């Protein structure tokens, strides 16, 4: 927590294009910035460059009874660092 800002962190996540895995992610964190935008940061373990260049993409965190899913709005991958703005999937 940073003031009133909530940060969610996790060890394992995935970037997906439809059902197709576009990147395996680790050490991810989601935080809301001062403008209310949810930002995802993560380490890229492995990626399929073609799929990662397609849209729409989602960020998926596997859970014991399903998954948490966010829609990716903008995405930057530089080396092994991923930064994205996201929204909860409706």
């Amino acid at each position: 927590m940073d003031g009133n800002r909530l940060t969610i962190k996790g060890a394992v996540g995935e970037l997906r294009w439809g059902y197709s895995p576009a990147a395996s992610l680790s050490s991810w964190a989601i935080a809301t910035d001062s403008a209310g935008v949810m930002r995802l940061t993560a380490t890229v373990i492995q990626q399929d460059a073609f799929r990662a260049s397609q849209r729409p993409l989602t960020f998926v965190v596997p859970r014991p009874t399903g998954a948490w899913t966010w829609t990716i709005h903008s995405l930057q991958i530089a080396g092994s660092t991923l930064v994205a703005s996201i929204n909860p999937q409706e």
Partner: protein
Amino acid sequence: MSRCRFVQPESVRLPLSDGDYLDVKRELTAGEQRGVFTDLIKTMHAGEAAELDPKLVGTTKIVAYVLAWSLTDAAGQPVPFSEAALNNLTPEDFAEIAKAIDDHEAAVEKARAARKNVQAGETASSLTSPSVAG
């Protein structure tokens, strides 16, 4: 505008008996298609026929296609799709799933062939010069 040659990751729901269903990929990518065959190969030497693993015949295609299913265990709990779960089905239920996938693949292939015929017809007609009345 040229056509998109890349497989779009779309899924299709295939009904099974007793209200169950499979969620499957509409079509496989070239890489996935190759994987269906190469995952079957036990040994392969240059100039010789590949030796296939009979245990995997029928399984690799299902694993390539299926994204999820509605199957539950004896306690009514959902069982996530996996190769291990597939191998624990009754032979009849495995056969039902294999047939559903084969039928789906055949239907997609038929639709693709029909689309190709239409495109080929369009190309042929666009290459034909209009006749000039003399």
